[in-house]
């Protein structure tokens, strides 16, 4: 047939961009540049492995619409998410959420016990809510509410600090939660969570 090679190339490209993603796919590698080759996170870029699929979708949409606007997201994620079409967003979220997460364990283990109390019971006398009410008893998250277990102290502390200083994403109680915590309590909760392993095998 005419233009056989061109047509075959077009077919190959269209096949390559549909269906489940692989680690070698360009869209995945665009992410793992910063988020770590095994998607476990790297410095400021949080772990994506094992994150709630709906949460990943919502965040990618929030970057694309500029609704999420803390400094590092503006600097890096606005560009990263700008050209992702909806099927790619869904595919990336499905890919990363299926990867097994590893706990970062970069928190202060001396603070973890206090952090565990705040996470599980809250501190009602200080009007601090128990995180598990939304995030689950094992910090596993659910639906669009993120898994926190095993995320890095570095990332969790940064986000809590940013929320407590006024950074906001509409529709979540996180700014209010973060403002209720003292700096020491933020460090405690972030430390505790950085050690939480993923107990179950289910997503």
């Amino acid at each position, binding site marked *: 047939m005419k233009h056989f090679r061109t047509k075959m190339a077009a077919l190959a490209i269209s096949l390559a961009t549909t269906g489940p993603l692989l680690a070698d796919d360009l869209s995945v590698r665009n992410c793992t540049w910063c988020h770590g080759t095994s998607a476990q996170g790297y410095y400021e870029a949080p772990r994506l492995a094992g994150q709630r699929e709906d949460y990943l979708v919502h965040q990618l949409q929030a970057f694309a619409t500029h609704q999420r606007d803390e400094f590092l997201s503006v600097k890096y994620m606005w560009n990263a998410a700008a050209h992702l079409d909806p099927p790619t967003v869904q595919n990336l979220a499905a890919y990363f959420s299926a990867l097994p997460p590893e706990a970062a364990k970069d928190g202060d283990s001396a603070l973890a016990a206090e952090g565990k109390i705040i996470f599980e*019971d*809250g*501190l009602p*006398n200080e009007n601090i809510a*128990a995180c*598990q009410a*939304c995030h689950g*008893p094992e910090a596993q*998250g*659910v639906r669009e509410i993120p898994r926190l277990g095993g995320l890095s102290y570095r990332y969790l502390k940064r986000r809590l600090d940013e929320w407590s200083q006024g950074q906001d994403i509409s529709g979540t109680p996180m700014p209010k939660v973060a403002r209720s915590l003292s700096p020491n309590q933020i460090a405690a909760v972030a430390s505790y969570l950085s050690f939480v392993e993923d107990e179950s095998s289910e997503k």
Partner: protein
Amino acid sequence: MKAVRLRVALTVTALAFFLAAAAGHQAQGGAQEVHARAGGIDAKFEYCTTCHGPSAQGFRGFYAMPRLAGQQPQYIENQLHAFLERRRLNPVMANVAHGITPDMIPALAARMSTLNPPPVGGAPAGDAALGREIFANGLPDQNVPACSACHGPDAKGQREIPRLAGQLYWYMVSTLSIWSSERGQGGRQDISWIMRPTVANLTPKQVQALAEYVSALR
């Protein structure tokens, strides 16, 4: 002699000063405590909305946190006492109740009852008609009374009987499903026992239908 008397007088005076200062400090500490409580209602209300939603409309987190907006104040007060006394089993709310002083309870309940946000919605669709039928007429063959008889035809409740209108679908389903293991742990005199036979006689599908119906009511 005069010198001794003078020294005694001075010591007594100094002591009096110390005691007065201590008492003043005590009074000041007491005043601060009252002040914290006075500002405490607003802070406590904000705290409730962290989980129950900005207008207390409810929130589906890992657990379904129920709508408190427009709820009967007597019902809210009863639940807070039930959590505190472990007659209603909920570890998170037991902790919360410990942080609410008795004088705060009526004020919080009153504030919740004045809120009126639209229902959160989101229930799966399809069984509202069945839910409406059961709500209005009950299921005589299953010994299920009409919910409206106690909860009101508009599902807004009365006195200690809770409002159901606009309640979270997932909260309704889970509450009706685990009634006897979570509520009325204080025994037969606990007001929650009244729901036990009704809950036992509803099938899961009927529970879902009822939940779907009331969750959309305003």
